[in-house]
Each structure stands twice: as structure tokens, then as C-alpha cells.
């Protein structure tokens, strides 16, 4: 008897569950053809950043505006910085309904996910509904973000080249009467760091976390993987950057600095520098700049920050794809999504509403294109660069009048990095790449932060990379680079 009971149970469960599943399937089709009429369609938008309290409130206002202009309403979902890549990867893979999503070279990788089919190819949509975008956006953006010759996303109009700088905490600079003049290379920092080390215990002379990589004049194929070509290359030879004299020298210097106590002892496992930046207990660090970045940094930290270049300004793949919006492959309303993106990138009213919130609640206008944050703005503090054309956003009172002209000049002055426009397709070497990633994780941070001695560990790392199949990946990259070069 008891046995019979046991056997019945799964059967009942199966019967029940099947009926449930069937029921659910029956419902999903249907109500599609309602478009075209007056009723606005809802666009689902996923974007990066710490979720803000007032998102729904602002989106209500945004929806009113867009419903009138182009017949769409907007539902925005924010996903926090650290979670964005993984969550979106799962959501796109499982076919979660969405229309627009943020993508970039550094979060929810654009090229890789375009290849996986997550985004809609937007070439024809752009011609038909995105004319405004084509007119305002520097053509280098759309050209540089092509994957296998096709566009899958709309880059934000912002700074185009990337330039590495040394940033300094100006309070400390002034206190010890130090000057940034003559600082350019990593080595040239030494006397300044020594002064801080000797006089300011508890302050990181060179603030470095586990994401740090010293500047070397190479264009990387994949961010933080050792494959690269030299910036002034003529033969486009792809090499292991760890084997270059520049990297060796940089790592040796880093290790010297680490031993001298210039670098936080826990650098190799430090997730971010946020704590140091909040407390001001740092003297210098490495950052990527844009025009008037010093103002931006000073404002956000609450104390003056100044910077001086440590590299040329170059247009890289990753800087072009630093912030993009793509249309989901499963979007129900791709045309409307494109119309919306077009409006977002051309209409200052919409762009600023999305960026700063509701006028009179979150901000107030103090001039034609100048605004000031109100108290409520803390409930709607958005990452400006991630939401489309930056050059439409209103200026802060401290910003110079000619801010966006300076951006344009900055963009025009940027030289092209050798691999601009080349995107590596890893699908033939995924096995090797998985093994190489593991080796990279094992050695990279410890080496880059100077925690370990490169004389010993660099050799070991290079050997282990080789054993993991680095040469196979290099050969595949070389093949693709050569092919790409031939078509240019």
C-alpha cells in the first residue's frame, strides 16, 4: 500500500504541472496587432547605474512627453554597476522582453553580445528613423562601432579619444609644495611619491586597486588580456604584451614602488578606490580624462583634484564603444525604439529630463542651457554619459560656456589607434580563451599592482599562458587582423 502511494505521487504532480504549462502556452500568442492606432506603446529600457528612487516618477513625466511626440511611453529599469553584465547576459539569453539596453566595451560587452545575437542590426532603422542621430553624431562613432561591418548600437555622443592622466589630490600637492610639471612617465612620479610616503603615513601615495594596469603604448585586442599590437605598429604584429620591454619596465617600477610603500599593501585584492576617494586619503592615481574632467572630479569628491597627461590621446575601439544604447533582438517595437533613441539624442528637453529629472523638482534652470541641482536631485542622480548624447545636457554653473566646443576640439584632435574598427571574434578559440582567462586572473592583478616580483612571476606567468594555449589565440587573432587589414 505504502509503495503504491509513493508511485502515485509523481504521476499526479506531472498531470497537474502539464496542465499548468499547457494553459500558459495557450495564452501567450495574440494581442499584437494593436499598433498603428493612437495608443502609445511601452518601451522597456534597461540601463546601468545604482537604481534611483525617483526613476518611475521621472519616467512618468518622460512618458507624457514622448507619448505626445512619438507615441511611446518608457519603462526604465536600472541595474547596479556590478550586476549589470551578468544580469543582462542572462536576460538576453533567456529572451526577457526588452526594447532598449545599455551596452559598452566595459559592461555587457557590445561586440561579444552583438555576435551572440542579443541586439538588432540597426542599419536600415537608422536610415529611416534615426536621421537626427546621423546628423549630430561624429561619424567616427558609428564607423568605429561596426561589428563585422554592421551597426548594432548607438554610441553616445561624448569624448571620442581616450587619454590617460595622473590625477593628484591638490590639497596634498599644495601642502608639500609639489608640482606636476615634468610628471609624465610612471618613473617621473617617484620624488613626489617619496615626499608623501615620508610625511603622510596612512595616505596612499599612488592609489592602485586590482583593476589597475600601468600605461604601456599598446593597443589591446581584448580589455585586460595580454594580446596587443604596438601603437606605432606598421606590420600589425599581435604579441603577448607581457613579453614587451615596456611592460617589463613598468612592472619592475611598480614592484619597486610597492616595496617602497607607495602603493596600498592590499592593492591586488582591492575592489575599488572609492573609500580612499571619499576620505581623501590618497595622493595620486591613474584615470582616463575628458575636457574639464578636473572640475567633474573635484565636484564629485568635494575637494580639488588636478591632473596631468601620461599618454597621448588616441581613439580606441573601447573608447568609441564606451557607452551605447542598443535595440534588443526580441524588441516588439524596433521602429518605435529607434524613434525614441533618435529623440533622446537630439531633443534637449527629453535628454535633460532623462538625465536630471523633472524641472522644478530635481533641478532648476538658471540660464538657457545652464541648470542647478535641487535637493531632490539626490533621488535621481543618473550617470550622464550612459544615457545618450552628452552634448545636449545643460551645463553646471561651474562649467565654462564653451564646454561642448572643447569636446568637439578634443574629439577632432584624437588620433586613431591602430586597431580602431577591428573586432576580434573569439568563437573559434573559446576553449583556449577560457583557460587563458584563468591564467590571467591568477597573475594579472598581482603583477600589475607590483605586489609580486616580476623577475620571478612574469616568467612564470608567460610560461603558464603558453601552456594554456595563448599561442593558438594569438595566431587566431593575427589571422583575423591580417584579414581585416586586407579589406581596408
Amino acid at each position: 500500500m505504502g509503495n503504491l502511494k509513493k508511485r502515485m505521487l509523481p504521476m499526479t504532480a506531472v498531470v497537474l504541472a502539464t496542465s499548468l504549462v499547457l494553459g500558459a502556452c495557450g495564452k501567450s500568442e495574440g494581442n499584437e496587432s494593436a499598433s498603428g492606432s493612437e495608443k502609445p506603446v511601452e518601451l522597456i529600457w534597461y540601463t546601468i547605474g545604482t537604481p534611483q528612487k525617483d526613476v518611475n516618477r521621472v519616467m512618468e513625466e518622460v512618458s507624457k512627453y514622448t507619448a505626445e511626440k512619438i507615441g511611446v511611453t518608457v519603462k526604465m529599469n536600472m541595474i547596479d554597476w556590478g550586476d549589470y553584465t551578468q544580469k543582462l547576459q542572462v536576460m538576453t539569453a533567456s529572451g526577457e522582453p526588452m526594447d532598449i539596453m545599455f551596452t559598452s566595451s566595459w559592461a555587457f560587452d557590445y561586440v561579444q553580445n552583438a555576435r551572440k545575437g542579443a541586439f538588432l542590426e540597426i542599419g536600415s532603422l537608422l536610415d529611416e528613423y534615426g536621421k537626427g542621430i546621423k546628423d549630430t553624431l561624429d561619424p567616427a562613432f558609428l564607423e568605429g562601432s561596426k561589428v563585422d561591418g554592421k551597426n548594432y548600437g548607438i554610441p553616445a555622443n561624448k569624448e571620442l579619444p581616450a587619454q590617460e592622466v595622473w590625477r593628484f589630490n591638490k590639497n596634498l600637492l599644495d601642502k608639500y609644495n609639489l608640482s606636476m610639471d615634468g610628471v609624465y612617465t610612471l618613473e617621473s612620479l617617484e620624488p613626489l611619491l617619496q615626499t608623501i610616503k615620508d610625511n603622510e603615513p596612512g595616505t596612499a601615495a599612488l592609489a592602485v586597486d586590482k583593476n589597475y594596469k600601468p600605461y604601456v603604448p599598446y593597443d589591446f585586442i581584448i580589455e585586460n588580456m595580454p594580446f596587443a599590437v604596438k601603437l606605432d605598429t606598421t606590420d600589425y604584429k599581435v604579441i603577448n604584451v607581457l613579453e614587451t620591454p615596456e611592460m617589463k619596465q613598468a612592472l619592475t617600477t611598480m614592484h619597486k614602488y610597492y616595496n617602497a610603500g607607495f602603493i596600498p599593501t592590499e592593492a591586488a585584492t582591492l575592489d575599488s578606490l572609492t573609500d580612499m576617494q571619499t576620505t581623501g586619503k590618497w595622493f595620486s592615481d591613474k584615470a582616463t580624462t575628458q575636457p574639464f574632467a578636473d572640475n567633474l572630479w573635484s565636484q564629485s569628491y568635494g575637494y580639488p583634484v588636478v591632473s596631468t597627461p601620461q599618454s597621448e590621446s588616441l581613439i580606441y575601439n573601447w573608447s568609441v564603444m564606451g557607452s551605447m544604447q542598443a535595440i534588443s533582438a526580441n524588441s516588439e517595437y524596433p521602429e518605435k525604439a529607434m524613434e525614441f533613441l533618435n529623440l533622446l539624442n537630439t531633443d534637449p528637453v527629453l535628454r535633460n529630463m532623462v538625465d536630471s529629472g523633472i524641472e522644478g523638482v530635481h533641478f532648476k534652470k538658471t540660464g538657457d542651457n545652464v541648470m542647478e541641482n535641487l535637493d531632490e536631485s539626490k533621488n535621481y542622480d543618473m550617470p550622464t554619459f550612459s544615457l545618450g548624447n552628452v552634448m545636449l545636457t545643460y551645463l553646471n554653473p561651474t562649467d565654462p560656456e564653451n564646454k561642448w566646443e572643447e569636446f568637439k576640439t578634443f574629439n577632432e584632435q584624437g588620433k586613431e589607434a591602430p586597431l580602431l574598427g577591428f573586432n576580434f571574434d573569439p568563437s573559434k578559440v573559446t576553449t583556449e580563451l577560457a583557460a587563458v582567462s584563468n591564467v590571467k586572473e591568477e597573475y594579472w592583478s598581482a603583477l600589475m599592482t607590483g605586489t609580486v616580483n616580476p623577475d620571478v612571476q612574469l616568467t612564470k606567468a608567460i610560461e603558464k599562458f603558453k601552456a594554456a594555449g595563448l599561442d593558438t589565440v594569438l595566431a587566431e587573432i593575427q589571422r583575423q587582423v591580417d584579414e581585416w587589414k586586407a579589406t581596408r
Partner: protein
Amino acid sequence: MGAIGRFFKDLNRNKAMLLMVLPASLWFLFFSYLPMAGLVIAFKQYRVSRDGFWASIVNSDWVGFTNFKFLFSTNDAYIITRNTVLYNVFFIVVGLILSVGLAIVLSEIANKRLAKVYQTGMFLPYFLSWIIVGYFVFSFLSLDRGVLNQVLANFGVDPINWYSDPTWWPVILVVVFLWKAVGYNSVVYLAAIMGIDRSLYEAAMIDGANKWQQIRNVTIPMLKPLIIILTLLAIGKIFYADFGLFYQVPRDSGPLYSVTNVIDTYVYRGLKATGEIGMSTAAGLYQSLIGFILVVTSNAIVRRFDKDNALF
């Protein structure tokens, strides 16, 4: 007719019982059995397609066993398998001895109120997430501010850079794991001890058994079925490592990988860059297959010696 009639009759007679197991059965069906269909992804190069998840699966290309290759392609395969299995064996054996031991000690404490306090105290770490435990450990092991290095300094020993020296990590990981898990398991055993018929102890006492003899001849034999079941279940998971323990607690520090890299962290680190779902599915399938084989084998062994205590 007869069979169907009997089915419904049986259904009706047992409806209370059936209703009680219904939620769990549904849960298993939806979250364990239905998703198994997704295992085909392990043999495909998964690509998103317009019409949703099922269409994506169907439209993706078959790639045979390519997705499994990365697990075995380097020397790391040996290291991660060794680490995963050895740590788990250690956790199972030492964890078992400690939890049963603690459970017995707790049950023997005369002051019941105090026993509850100890029990709760040991139970609490179980509820902490590994991230928080990771920071606890960091406060002990930090190079310049860590408790341990300061203690060492008092004894005139040079500070140790714990996060780049793998020597001590096998011990640290075992200690941290046990600290977190033992309290919980001992509560399970304690409950079983509480359920043992008191008259058995009375009989033992009348026969002149001392405490030690009572424990050896009454408590442990009575716990044996539970010990076997829990151990069998643990063996089924021997190819799964606790990701939080091996990733968060060593702060993902590269120089420690030789002793902290396990299958789960290897898969995570390997696929972070490419995000190939097919490959992670392959790894999961491989782990569960080995786990399944191990459970069936160890169960067969148990049945050989002690038929009543086997799982199935």
C-alpha cells in the same frame, strides 16, 4: 476501468498526504526536472534568436563535446579537481566528527538554558553570507591592520602577507568552512538525539553503563541512519565547491589559486570574459554526472553492508 477506478480511489483516500507533498513536488518539477531539458545547451553553441528562449535553443548549432573541452584542456584540470574533491572530503569527514561531537556535548549539558545559548551562538555563522565572512577573515589576515599579524608582531615574528602566500590557506579554508557549517549540522544531529527514546538510556544506566558507554552504545548507533543519509547526500555534491568560500574568502587573490581554485571558480573565471552559456552548462552537467555516479556507487556500497540504511 478497474485500474483507473482504483487510481482515483487511492487518490481520494490519500488526499491529505498528497496535498502535503504537492508543493514540494511541484517545486521539484518546475525547478529541477523541467529545466533538465536545458541540458541540450551543453552540446550547442548558444546564440540568442528573435523568438525567445526555446527558439534560441533550437536554432543554435550543435557542437558535440566542444563545450566540455575547456575543463580538461590544461594542467589546471588536475588542480581544480584535486582541490574540489580533497576539500570536500575533508569537509565531510571533519565536519561530521565535529558536528556529531558537538551535538552530543550539547545534549549532555545539564544547564539547558546555557545549552541553548551555545547552540544559538554556533548556529549564527550559518546565516552570514560569504561576503561578510570574507570581510571577517580579512580583518584577521590583513597585512597591516589584521589581528593575526599584530599578534605575530608581539611575538617578534615578521608579518605574513596572507593573501599572496598559499601556505596556510588549506587550513584557513577548512577552519572558516567548519566555523560556518558545523553549528547548523550539529543542530540537525541534536534534534535526532533529542528524538532518541529516553528509556534506552535508562536501560543502559540500569545495566551500569557510564556516560561514555551510553554515547558509544546508544547515541551513536541511533544516529547512524541519519549520519549515513547526510553523508551520502554530501558525497553527491563532492564535485561542487562552495563558490563563496573559495572566491570571496581568499578575496579572489591570484597568488593563492594553486590552493583555492576549484571547479566552480575555474568555470566562473574562464567564462567571465566570453559568457558562453553552453560552456557553463557543460561544466554543470559534468559536475552533476560525476556526483550522480558517486552517490549511486556509495549507496550501493552502503547497501552491501547495511541494507536498511541505504538511500534507495
